């Protein structure tokens, strides 16, 4: 009798000891002469339970976690490989509340399949979207993406179909598909989870994009901090090439699409699309003026579709199940689902994919279970280092793009970093300016100089007396306005958001040294 055990190879699971757990299971199985096949899956996204080990049973997968190497002998004694009871038992994986109450479309296979196995991907519905796309012409594929209401999940939330159409409508010549996998926002890891846990879905999405707009070459621009994702993607690309899903004759259609992973250089600004294109061209990652739009003059001056990992990885399900299926999720102008990443000081950190329309409170208090420290939630930074700090009093805001803009925030890439009541918001505001100064590409003055002046002004506010503080605050707000209005891209143009939100909602923290 053979048993199948799943131990994630997800980078976060590995960071908690999953590799040692996998080795220990294999060794103990050999010692006890039990035939166990260890599959290295992605993470289910229940990170407080990682390393989470699953076993296949006739009733479905049963989970155990968090498992450490030292637990393996006891787990074997409890016959965990057959789903036996143990102190670490979590029951059927699919019945765990955190997971059960999700709507996983983009993440349908993550944590379930073996990310190194193309056969497993296909057995779980993979490449059905591409098969549909191959029966359509480019314009029809673009229309389907437009109709789905899918907006750029990297943060800017620009309608993907419009980007695609612009590129599609440019006549002839070389075109490119570029995947922005420079996931630099703190509190975000959904791109990484997809690339490590279901890399084929990204490859499929990019292939569909290529066929739709007539591009034959794709690049995945991957941050250098993600070596695990690099290995997963390169293995998947090689497998797709061997099986004829990449190359000169995709699925026997006569259409060509090739894909290459390019490693970034550790510059946050290269997540900005024009800066990313400069970097891919082998240059300093300095932001370009727009227009021309990348869809018309992008990589090497050629028409280029550039989308985030999640955007591209969502395309296959839209093609497979139809635009209406996807569009039926969500609210208002925010259609479909958003993979939300709970991070920071939160009890149940992890990935929640839900249709737009739930509240921040449901996420932080419901799924997240409050803070990890057990103290009160004070602020949530939503949307990365350029996102506003949302005070606990605004927890009832609805999760959709427009609702966040209405309260002076942004949903961004869906990362939510929770802070408890020990946080010093003046220090967080200072950090936002400091980060902008470190990562500014230097092209425009409001960002390059403004961020450095911002750090200095905040230092003077915190150190000053009441009169000085008042004067300096006027200066800081004025500086923020200059950056908001005068910066070339979102780095300088949004770095004031966390600063202003800290000033507006947590003013007392700037008065700490008041005399």
């Amino acid at each position, binding site marked *: 009798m053979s048993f199948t055990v799943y131990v994630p190879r997800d*980078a*976060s699971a*590995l*960071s*908690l000891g999953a590799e040692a757990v996998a080795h220990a299971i294999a060794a103990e199985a050999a010692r006890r002469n039990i035939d166990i096949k260890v599959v290295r899956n992605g993470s289910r*996204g229940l*990170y*407080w339970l*990682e390393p989470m080990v699953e076993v296949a049973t006739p009733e479905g997968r049963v989970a155990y976690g968090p498992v450490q190497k030292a637990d393996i002998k006891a787990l074997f004694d409890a016959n965990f490989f057959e789903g036996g009871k143990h102190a670490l038992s979590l029951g059927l994986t699919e019945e765990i509340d955190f997971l059960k109450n999700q709507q996983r479309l983009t993440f349908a296979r993550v944590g379930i399949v073996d990310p190194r196995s193309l056969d497993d991907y296909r057995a779980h519905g993979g490449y059905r979207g591409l098969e549909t796309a191959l029966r359509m012409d480019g314009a029809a594929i673009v229309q389907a993406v437009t109709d789905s209401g899918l907006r750029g999940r990297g943060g800017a939330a620009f309608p993907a179909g419009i980007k695609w159409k612009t590129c599609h409508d440019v006549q002839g010549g070389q075109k490119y598909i570029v995947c922005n996998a420079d*996931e*630099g*926002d*703190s*509190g*975000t*890891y959904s*791109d*990484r989870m997809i690339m490590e846990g279901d890399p084929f879905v990204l490859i499929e999405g990019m292939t569909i994009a290529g066929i739709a707009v007539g591009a034959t070459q794709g690049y995945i621009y991957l941050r*250098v*901090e*993600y*070596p*695990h994702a690099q290995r997963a993607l390169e293995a998947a690309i090689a497998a797709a090439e061997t099986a004829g899903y990449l190359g000169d004759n995709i699925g026997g259609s006569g259409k060509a699409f090739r894909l290459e992973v*390019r*490693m*970034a*250089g*550790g*510059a*946050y600004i290269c997540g900005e699309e024009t800066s990313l294109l400069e*970097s*891919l*061209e*082998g*240059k*300093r*990652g*300095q932001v370009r003026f727009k227009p021309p739009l990348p869809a018309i003059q992008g*990589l*090497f001056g050629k028409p280029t579709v550039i989308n985030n990992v999640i955007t591209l990885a969502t395309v296959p399900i839209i093609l497979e199940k139809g635009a209406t299926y996807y569009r039926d999720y969500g609210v208002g102008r925010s259609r479909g689902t958003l993979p939300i*990443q*709970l*991070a*920071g*000081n939160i009890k149940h*950190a*992890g*990935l929640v994919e839900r249709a737009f329309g739930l509240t921040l409170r449901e996420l932080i208090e419901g799924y997240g279970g409050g803070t*990890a420290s057990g103290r009160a939630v004070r602020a949530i*930074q939503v949307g990365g*280092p350029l996102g506003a700090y949302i005070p606990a009093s605004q927890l009832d805001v609805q999760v959709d793009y427009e609702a966040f803009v209405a309260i002076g925030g942004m949903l961004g890439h869906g*990362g939510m*970093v929770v*802070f*408890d009541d020990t946080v010093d918001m003046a220090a*967080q505001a200072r*950090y936002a300016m400091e*980060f902008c100064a470190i*990562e500014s*590409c230097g092209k425009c003055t409001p960002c390059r100089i403004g961020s450095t002046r911002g750090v200095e002004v905040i230092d003077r506010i915190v150190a000053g007396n009441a009169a000085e503080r008042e004067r300096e605050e006027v200066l800081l707000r004025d500086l923020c306005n200059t950056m908001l209005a005068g910066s070339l891209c979102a780095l300088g143009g949004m770095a004031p958001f966390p600063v202003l939100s800290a000033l507006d909602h947590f003013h007392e923290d700037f008065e700490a040294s008041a005399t």
Partner: protein
Amino acid sequence: MKRAANVAKLPDLPEEIRAAVLEVTDRLKDLPGALLPVLHGVQEALGYVPEDAVPLIAREMNLSRADVHGVISFYHFFRSHPSGRRVIYVCRAESCQAMGAVTLEKHIKQRLGVDFHQTTADGAYTLEPVYCLGNCACSPAIMVDDELQGRMTPARFDAWLDAEAT
């Protein structure tokens, strides 16, 4: 002929560096937008991108030295000097801050006796800041070379360091 003339102008370079650079440039220079892949290749082979190798890289890529220098200095990841035997990247970003990264950072600096961008006297460790490792659900995080570690604490760091030393 032009190439020979250029060669004469290049500074002397230790043979192993020269060979490593040429191996990488010969292999990668014809890729579209090849400079980042080439710099990654050189840093992978040598552990850093020597300043003295910039003229050679520039010549092989048909770029100016300023172009190559400008790219190396723009990206945080490329280093112009050798690192310690292992590089410790400590995440300074918000999610890790929310879980005690500031305390952890102070502790690591004190324990190793170095600031960011410095290498310990024995050449064992180089300390670098990093702004998000994508391990935000398991903050605070550090990465040692390409080995990610989550839920790091001062005590766990010390335990790891002691285990490394033995």
